């Protein structure tokens, strides 16, 4: 099993803790990378804003750019009403982005390649969406499944479709991120082991190892793009779902 491309996803305890209610809550490698991500985000941003100045330096510009990027995204989609979700969307975007990027470096473990993590984040988003809808519109929230202005018989068709698409949201949201991260890392690992295997055969085979090596390089570049893109997609879909319940008149 040692060289299985799925090996990299296995979870090992680093600091074993006694089980709580029959559940193993040990501090594992995934816990470590979550902690690292949070430390990097908070530490990096705090360091960048340590001595904030009128004319920002490089680090401060980067911090402000990420702030304006997420803030602009929310303002463009929901208008000023959505800004109270800004800290959540910002945390979500940065956490996924940094976790994805950390998986690209020396000790590759990608928190977001685990469906447990992405599903938890997606369900958190959907819970916030449902709560916001219920608080803002009360029972009117359920109009989300029955858009007004249709002939009666159409509701028989539309309402189930709306309900299914709403229920599918947390699943698509989590599977999209998880599958992207999983597939990228599996491919990298497979091409990497090709290089090693071909190199080990020697002679003409070793020369052929250049091909999977080039592919691995190309995929690495692509993976950096995917790392950013998936964080962006997760964040923007969160904002779009929130917008649905903030402005309920479609």
């Amino acid at each position, binding site marked *: *099993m*040692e060289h299985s491309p*799925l*090996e990299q*996803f*296995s*979870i*090992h305890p680093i600091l*074993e803790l*006694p*089980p709580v209610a*029959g*559940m*193993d*809550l*040990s*501090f*594992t490698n*995934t*816990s470590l990378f*979550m*902690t690292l*991500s*949070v430390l990097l*985000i*908070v530490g990096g*941003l*705090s360091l960048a*804003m340590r001595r*904030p100045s*009128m004319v*920002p330096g490089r680090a*401060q510009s980067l*911090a*402000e750019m990420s*702030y*304006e990027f997420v803030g602009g995204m929310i303002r463009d989609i929901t208008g000023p009403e959505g800004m109270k979700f*800004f*800290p*959540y969307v*910002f*945390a979500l975007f*940065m*956490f996924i982005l940094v976790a994805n990027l950390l998986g690209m470096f020396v000790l590759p473990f990608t*928190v977001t*390649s*685990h*469906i*447990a*993590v992405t599903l*938890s*984040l997606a369900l958190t988003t959907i819970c916030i969406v449902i709560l916001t809808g219920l608080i803002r519109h009360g029972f009117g929230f359920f109009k989300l499944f029955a858009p007004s202005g249709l002939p009666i018989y159409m509701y028989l068709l539309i309402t189930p479709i709306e309900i299914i698409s709403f229920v599918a949201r947390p699943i698509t949201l989590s599977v999209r991120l*998880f599958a992207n991260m*999983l597939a990228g890392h599996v491919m990298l690992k497979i091409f990497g082991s090709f290089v090693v295997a071909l190199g080990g055969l020697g002679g003409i085979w070793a020369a052929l190892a250049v091909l999977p090596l080039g592919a691995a390089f190309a995929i690495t570049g692509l993976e950096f793009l995917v790392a950013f893109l998936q964080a962006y997609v997760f964040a923007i879909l969160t904002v779009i779902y929130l917008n649905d319940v903030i402005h309920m008149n479609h």
Partner: protein
Amino acid sequence: MAHPPTPVTHAVEDAAHGAAEGGLPQLDFATWPGQIFWLAVTFGLLYLFLSRSVLPKIGTVIEERLDKIADDLDEAGRLKAQADDAAKAYEKALGDARAKAHAIAGETRDKLNAEIAKETEAAETVFAEKTDAAEARIRKTTQAALANVRDAAADAAAAIVAKLSGGAPDPAAVSKAVDAAAKRG
């Protein structure tokens, strides 16, 4: 290899591991509670730090900058208005000064013209008086000369008559005849 020697407390979990050994580690549900627990802890802390400390700080800096820029623009506008006012005041002062200079020049010219006219008039009066006096003298002299000419003509006529007739004519008659001749031309 993936699993170190089993501690007694992890017996149950390890059984699950064993079952998932050939498949995706992601679907090893024994790891889910741990993952979700640590995600909740770390993501919760991240959210707290960001919403309480980091994001307000960045927001404040950006807002302060926007305020500063707006203030600076206002200040610049104010200073520009001031400069415009000053330029207008300068133009006005310049115009006033020019008008005043113009007025003074006009006044002086008028005064000088008046003085010249007065003096010219006075000189003309003096000149006219002198001319009149001279004309009167010329007239008197002419009359005297004409009178002398008549007397001379009468004397000449009397002398001519005396020579021709041999007797002295009556001076009164001569004088009358001369006057009549002078009247005929």
